[in-house]
């Protein structure tokens, strides 16, 4: 069902956990649907210095979460915003068709985290 790369990211997920000093947090999905992805980012000078995730969901949900963190760690937020769900799936060597829509949301969570970071920055500037 899943590619080897998916299974690797699922069994040995990269960057699992929370970031105490995250300045951006994004969450997608809900427990009702069976998938929640929460991504924590620590952005400095527009660069994602650190990133962690916590995910409740199926193999694809966990693997895409792990993959997206690897793909953007050390990248600028502009670069990170260009990472799509599709790109994450491709980086994993593809996902089963049924998983493409319901569990391939990690990039969305990342984008939400970046949005959240930007909002936080704005608030900080305004204050």
């Amino acid at each position: 069902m899943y590619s080897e790369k998916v299974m690797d990211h699922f069994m040995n997920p990269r960057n699992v956990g929370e970031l105490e000093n995250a300045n951006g947090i994004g969450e997608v999905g809900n427990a009702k649907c069976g998938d929640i992805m929460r991504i924590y980012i620590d952005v400095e000078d527009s660069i994602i210095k650190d990133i962690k995730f916590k995910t409740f969901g199926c193999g694809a949900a966990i693997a895409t979460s792990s993959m997206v963190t690897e793909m953007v760690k050390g990248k600028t937020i502009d670069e990170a915003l260009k990472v799509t769900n599709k790109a994450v799936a491709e980086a994993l060597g593809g996902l089963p068709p049924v998983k493409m829509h319901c569990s391939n949301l990690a990039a969305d969570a990342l984008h939400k985290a970046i949005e959240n970071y930007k909002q936080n920055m704005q608030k900080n500037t305004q204050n």
Partner: protein
Amino acid sequence: MRKVYLDHSATTPVRPEVVEVMNQYLTNNFGNASSVHSFGREARKGLETAREQIANLIKAQPEEIFFTSGGTEADNMAIIGTAFANQKKGKHIITTQIEHHAVLETCHHLEKLGFEVTYLPVDKNALVSVEKVKEAIRDDTILISMMHANNEVGTIQPVKEVGALAKEKGIVFHVDAVQSFGKLPIDVNEMNIDLLSASSHKIYGPKGIGCLFLRKGTKVEPLMFGGAQERKRRPGTENVPAIVGFGLAAELAGKEMAQENERLTKLRDKLIQGILEKIPHVQLNGHPTQRLANNVNVSFHYVEGESLLLMLDMKGIAASSGSACTSGSLDPSHVLLAMGISHEIAHGSLRMTLGKVNTEEDIDYCLEVLPDIVAKLRSMSPLYNSGKIEN
């Protein structure tokens, strides 16, 4: 790596005795059972012996057994066949919310064709209430279709009581016995069953074969059209090797039933107890005692079923889940939801169904592996600390 198969309600390996007899009918006695010559007569003999073996298991007459391609076809034939044969009498059907899709989807199809279907609710243990069946009966009710034992949570239904009711009211009674055939004693007369579906691959027989018990005198329209096989009720060259295998599997299941149920009940209870003791935030789904001897169904809060299955699989353990993610749909098991279990908790369900080859060591291994896996997944779960779905 140790391999522990705990998915016997999904399907079973074919037992060696059955493989052996099948091979004989695949190669030597391969004739078409409808042929006049010796090859055909040999095949016919095997076919009719199997019919007897199966009839014996449920106290039916051999002429009341009709072979189908599996449980799904038997369910379709029973329900669609009864509906069309009786539509002049009425168009109302009663079933339950926890039936297998082979029954539910068939009923949905009939609804599109103008039939009316009542889907009875169940209690938190997945039990159907006889009282509710009674209340649902109308003058135009032509069929009650109800499973004997549930495939997900193992709950055993009051089939005999519903059968008595159906008989009293003159309503055709169909029982989906796919999960109980060969596992629970069945007497179609005592239970007043008119139609009963069974499937071979759940009892160590081959896949692709099942049967419909059709009580003499019960009117059912055929689902398919063609040759005159199965006394004109089910056309197509008879699948003799599979039928012969099914027959032997049924006979052996009957012989071993009492002893095997005792053995499995012990293993099952050991597994349930172990899980409840070793892992926090877990619940048993289904009836605590009125359940199949081989069924364990639990929900681990804060984790999702498919990832649980994958991790178990990496440890050699094969199980299943009512999580939506295993089917690619968005909603988890309709059975768990009908029992009043929340979506969140349904997603974290794990079904382990035991079988012939499982030993105490298998259970020990499972109890050794499971806590770590659950802990690992919880450590990744954004829900675990938040306590969002604690109940």
